[in-house]
């Protein structure tokens, strides 16, 4: 139950990409018919993706994943609008793929053209559920602000941010708005027209597509530079030979998501509620992490007091259950995650964060199994914990 870290490509997705790994291996930039066959496949994928998020195909640029899309959004806008605009607003709970490019820009010092101050970034606080307050966005906007980037839903705690409300403010102020929708595309309804964003990032492997392919939605008219520079692929917006099988795959994954969406939402919400209710009932001293209702259907994040995350994960793994602590995307260090800290979790509690995330293949039986196994694990570890009695 770690579908927030990655998902298994849908069998139909693998099936669809296979011919493009085998006999249909042309380069879409080649003039011969062999290349044009590949190009047609790329354009079909673009249509399928556009159809999922309700935009024009030309507004989709394929990338290598969520990280590249996020880096592209940040760099693309700020390098285009500098030096007049040199300010970015984001939140403290963004994915590292937003925070790190921002840190890099901040460290760049004075603006590249030497005109006045360098890049500035405002990292907005969130409340204890992880919600950004739209009014904080409004208050942070200055005449130097180029871009606001707030994630659609958080990968650790599942909280869904008030994107529409923020978009109203950015539109009013004439500031670009990017949202990292890596956790939401294919999981909940993502309609760029309805959301009102200018830029949106997604990654195929989070919605039953393969790893190494993603996209960025760039609303027509949005001014930005390239990020990957070289050939004139993707209408000059992203260089590099197109990952044709990957694009075919993400297209197929988008198409499937479109059909299955309401079913997915219904099913994962049901399983999640079953899991939450069962855990709360069976284990004392735990609490739900993130907003109770404004949350991703698939995300079941909790704080288990008195025990440490890795030891829970290992025990779960021994029982054949996958889960994650902090962000699976950035583990390795077991430092309490920046998200958990930003919502004001105490250091002790932060170590006890654990995230189950549900997918289309999970069943009620599996949830029952977790409800059977996990309380015992917590009990065993708590018996060992010197924090318990304090």
């Amino acid at each position, binding site marked *: 139950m770690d579908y927030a870290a990655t998902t298994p490509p849908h069998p139909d997705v693998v099936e669809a990409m296979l011919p493009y790994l085998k006999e249909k291996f042309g380069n879409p930039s080649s003039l011969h018919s062999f290349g044009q066959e590949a190009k047609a496949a790329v354009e079909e994928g673009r249509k399928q993706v556009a159809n999922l998020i309700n935009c024009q195909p030309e507004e989709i640029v394929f990338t290598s994943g969520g990280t590249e899309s996020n880096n592209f959004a940040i760099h693309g806008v700020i390098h285009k609008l500098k030096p007049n605009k040199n300010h970015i607003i984001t939140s403290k709970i963004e994915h590292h793929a937003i925070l790190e490019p921002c840190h890099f820009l901040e460290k760049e010092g004075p603006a590249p053209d030497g005109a006045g101050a360098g890049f500035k970034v405002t990292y907005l606080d969130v409340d204890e559920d992880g919600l950004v307050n739209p009014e904080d966005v409004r208050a942070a906007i200055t005449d130097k602000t180029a871009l606001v980037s707030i994630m659609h839903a958080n990968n650790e705690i599942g909280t869904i941010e008030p994107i529409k409300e923020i978009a109203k403010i950015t539109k009013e102020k004439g500031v670009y708005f990017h949202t990292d929708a890596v956790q939401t595309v294919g999981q909940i309804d993502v309609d760029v027209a309805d959301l009102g964003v200018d830029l949106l990032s997604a990654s195929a492997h989070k919605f039953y597509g393969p790893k190494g392919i993603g996209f960025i939605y760039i609303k027509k008219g949005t001014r930005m530079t390239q990020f990957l520079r070289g050939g004139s692929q993707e209408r000059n917006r992203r260089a590099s030979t197109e990952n044709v099988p990957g694009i075919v795959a993400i297209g197929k994954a988008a198409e499937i998501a479109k059909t299955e969406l309401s079913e997915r939402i219904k099913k994962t919400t049901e399983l999640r509620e079953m899991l939450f209710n069962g855990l709360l009932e069976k284990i004392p001293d735990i609490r739900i992490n993130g907003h109770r209702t404004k949350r991703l259907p698939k995300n079941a994040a909790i704080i288990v007091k*008195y*025990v*440490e*995350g*890795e*030891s829970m994960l*290992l025990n779960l*793994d*021994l029982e054949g259950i996958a889960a994650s602590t902090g962000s699976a995307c950035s583990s*390795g*260090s*077991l*430092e*309490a995650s920046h998200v958990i800290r930003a919502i004001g979790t*105490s*250091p*002790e509690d932060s*170590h006890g964060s654990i995230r189950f995330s549900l997918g289309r293949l999970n069943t009620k039986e599996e949830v029952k199994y977790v409800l059977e196994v996990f309380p015992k694990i917590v009990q065993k570890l708590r*018996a*060992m*914990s*010197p*924090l318990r009695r304090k």
Partner: protein
Amino acid sequence: MPEAYSNKVMEHFKNPRNVGELENPDGTGHVGNPVCGDIMEMYIKVKDNVITDAKFKTFGCGAAIATSSMATELIKGKTIEEALSVTNKAVAEALGGLPPVKMHCSVLAEDALKSAIDDYLKKTTGKGLPGFKPHDHTH
């Protein structure tokens, strides 16, 4: 991280030895803090300069639990002097090695042990372990 942890580590993690507290311990060690995420408590019984029993309580990752378990195993039946020569390396080696990022757990275990002996010495001789100062575990 089953791939990264040795079988021995996993074995001690699954079935940790000497979990719990001792009633009226002769020495108690307490190291680590909740901010860094690893806390170890170690309890020892000493008779005629020999450690007759040892127990631990640990809040921490797999390696922290396994090193606590191994450390208590290693010192049981040893004299204080012998126990003091049980280094973090010795604990890690007895576990078949630790991933580099987890070596600090073995340091914590050594410190917990020394801290318990320090406490024992203070109680019995009025002076602690000469030169003992636990490592800074806040990173």
